[in-house]
């Protein structure tokens, strides 16, 4: 969600007001960090990438013309920065199950629920990285299909197909996994 006085804040940042930028960073840092984390699967690197993205956004703010939402423009920078960090990553130490799909388990610590999360995470791992990201951003509920497309710099129809295909594949994988699990019981 955008800040109510966002255009004014952006104008103030353009005149060198760092306190105005502090408000923008505070408002968008969680989603920026979450996007970077979903791409990098590593908290330290994700934080560094998100910080770099905010610095780039500050330095290139004069290029923001307001054609898209500020958040979409900013998250696109986060996306590109995290992808360039990803290319530099030599070894991925963390497993996707424990990082990519971070879930809250408020009030539902049942074994069944844990199992469901595990299966979904396992199924998610079968998708390519772009499909994983598209479907996760879509389900984050903060982003519309158009915004996911804007962040990933792909046509809306491409992202729509990507998400549709990802959900289908996830459903197929889940069915297989659950059937397999049922046979071993």
């Amino acid at each position, binding site marked *: 969600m955008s800040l109510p006085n966002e255009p004014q804040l952006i104008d103030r940042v353009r005149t060198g007001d*760092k306190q105005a930028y502090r408000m923008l*960073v505070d408002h968008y840092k*969680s989603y920026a960090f*979450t996007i970077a984390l979903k791409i990098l699967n590593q908290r330290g690197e994700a*934080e560094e990438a998100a910080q770099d993205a905010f610095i780039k956004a500050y*330095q290139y703010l004069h290029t923001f013309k307001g054609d898209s939402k500020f958040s979409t423009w900013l998250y696109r920078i986060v996306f590109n920065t995290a992808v360039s960090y990803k290319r530099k990553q030599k070894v991925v130490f963390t497993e996707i199950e424990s990082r990519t799909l971070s*879930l809250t388990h408020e009030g539902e610590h049942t074994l069944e629920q844990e199992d469901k999360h595990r299966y979904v995470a396992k199924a998610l791992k079968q998708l390519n990285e*772009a499909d994983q990201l598209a479907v996760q951003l879509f389900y984050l509920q903060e982003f519309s299909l158009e915004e996911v497309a804007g962040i990933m710099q792909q046509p809306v129809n491409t992202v729509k197909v990507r998400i549709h295909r990802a*959900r289908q594949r996830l459903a197929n994988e889940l*069915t297989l996994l659950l059937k397999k699990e049922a046979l071993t019981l």
Partner: protein
Amino acid sequence: MNSSLDEKMMDYLDGLLPAEERAQLERELLTSPRLRERLEMFRLLAQTFSKQSVQQPSKDFTESVLSDLNRKRLSAGFSPRNGFLLFVGVVVAVLVVSFFLGNGFYGDQLNIATKELALPQLKQSIPAFNVNSNLIINGILIVASAISFVVLDRTVLKPLFQKRMHQF
């Protein structure tokens, strides 16, 4: 499972299905256990993903960004556009030098200079040695050409292919 039926079920769960199609799908669900099982899979996905939490960065995140705003000035570096311009520049330079070399321009100049500067006393004090200037210039041209291709690869081709790979 039929792809359009899958799409209908996804739209159903997302609340995007028109009332008429919704009613029809609900009727089909009553009679088809296979369809119900499939819908349950999509529902399970939606439920699980909807519990994704937005992650919080460290407490000093904002301070780190603000303190680095001026210190960490990011250089423009080699953009694909800059890389392409540099590549064109090197290629033009190579072609110009090749043209002059092909017309014997450098060879003549070197001969004249040698003739004019080579004093008899100097000839005696300096030991004789042969330097093939054409060979040196050819070598420089080859190195320049190689550099231009490396520049093209690093700044234009590699980023382009990496971007395309990322887009699948």
